[in-house]
């Protein structure tokens, strides 16, 4: 019987929740990673290991790894630096495991890889020379929290092809394993002045349909967007959503037209509108949206969900999960139709990922 494992990255360490295929009852373990702030925790289906990108105020950035679903942990940051005192690595965030490789996105912007299961790391690219790169390492141009590469999206069929988000700049694609990059932001909208139309977009979340690798989705600072040509061009699909702003999103494992988002109020609040929690789903590639809220709090629920705060599992009827920046974790075992709060008092949640483990 398969196990369903949730990996939850929080302000105070990584937590794991386990259930069976029914996904009704959950057992919680943690905190792991010595309570370090964990920005993203993932499961590598090839090795079976869990990896957690963390950054301690005292001891710096590192990637923790557990080969045994959380029983034992080690951390390493060997090679996880720019080798240059001018370029400081303040944080690792977006982790991706593909074909026996691990990718990590970093602040300041950089893409690192590990080929030995996270024991050592090497810099693949800083995307130097790309439009926008002349200013993205200048502290005077940086918002609080700095700019970085929060996420890397691999192509399942081509190990040398992947996409990287640079915060506040946009998406870049490489087809030669990080040697060269091309901006992929055509069709995106910006509510601010842009000098070069190729870059200057605030991409929050980028996803690919597991069943159609041409089909990408993104939640942007200003709108939901879809691409049917691997990111060459984008079409806005915000119409029907309560707000254009949000961070988290998820794709259906078997239907390329079904996609989940959590719209938030823009501005400083960045909580779900009107204090009523909801996930929104399209089943027609963004032509229409439906509000899913059965079991979610519908009054005084001023909660937000961050970029990596949502996940969808791979069962025939997929489970959908999200964690809030105030520590509540919600699960649906019926593709979002109904929801249950499965943890109520976690530290602030930065990431939720799910794995089905045999």
């Amino acid at each position, binding site marked *: 019987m398969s196990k369903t494992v949730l990996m939850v990255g929080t302000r105070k360490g990584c937590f794991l929740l386990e259930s069976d295929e029914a996904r009704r009852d959950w057992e919680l373990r943690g905190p792991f990673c*010595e309570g370090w702030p964990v920005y993203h925790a993932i499961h590598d289906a090839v090795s079976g290991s869990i990896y957690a990108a963390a950054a*301690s105020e*005292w001891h*710096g950035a590192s990637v923790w790894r557990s080969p045994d679903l959380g029983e034992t942990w080690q951390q390493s*940051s060997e090679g996880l*630096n720019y080798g240059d*005192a001018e370029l400081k690595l303040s944080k690792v965030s977006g982790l991706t495991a593909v074909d026996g490789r691990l990718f990590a996105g970093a602040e300041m912007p950089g893409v690192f890889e590990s080929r030995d299961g996270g024991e050592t790391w090497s810099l693949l690219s800083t995307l130097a020379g790309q439009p926008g790169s002349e200013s993205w390492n200048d502290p005077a141009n940086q918002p609080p929290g700095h700019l970085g590469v929060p996420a890397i999206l691999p192509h399942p069929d081509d190990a040398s092809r992947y996409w990287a988000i640079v915060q506040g700049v946009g998406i870049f694609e490489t087809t030669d394993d990080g040697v060269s990059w091309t901006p992929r932001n055509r069709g995106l909208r910006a509510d601010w002045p842009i000098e070069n139309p190729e870059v200057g977009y605030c991409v929050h979340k980028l996803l690919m349909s597991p069943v159609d690798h041409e089909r990408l989705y993104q939640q942007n600072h200003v709108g939901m967007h879809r691409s049917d040509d691997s990111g060459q061009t984008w079409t806005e699909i915000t119409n029907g959503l309560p707000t254009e702003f949000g961070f988290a999103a998820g794709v259906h494992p078997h239907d390329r037209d079904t996609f989940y988002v959590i719209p938030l109020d823009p501005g400083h609040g960045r909580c779900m509108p009107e204090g009523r929690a909801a996930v929104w789903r399209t089943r027609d590639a963004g032509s229409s949206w439906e509000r899913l809220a059965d079991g979610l709090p519908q009054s005084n629920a001023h909660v937000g969900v961050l970029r990596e705060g949502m996940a969808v599992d791979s069962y025939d009827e997929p489970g959908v999960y999200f964690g809030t920046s105030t520590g509540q974790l919600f699960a649906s075992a019926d593709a979002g139709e109904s929801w249950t709060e499965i943890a109520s008092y976690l530290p602030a949640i930065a990431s939720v990922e799910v794995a089905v483990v045999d």
Partner: protein
Amino acid sequence: MAELHLPSTLAPLFVGLPRRLEVDAATVAEALDRLEERWPGFRDRLCEPGPVLRRHIHVYVDRQRAGLDTTLDGRSRVDVIAAISGG
């Protein structure tokens, strides 16, 4: 041998690393080198590339604020402090 005192946050990261240990070193940097040899990755937790001490890691030698190049003698006491905290 200088007497080195480490913050509680370090010991869980390295198997067998004690809170207090004695090190034969002429400077603070050399003391960290000795620990790096025994516990690979140790220096990364206290230093950024340069190397320079991480912003919130403070080192005191005989109760005086010190740097990586501060000299040690056989009677020095070295305190490594994780200098800030929060809720």
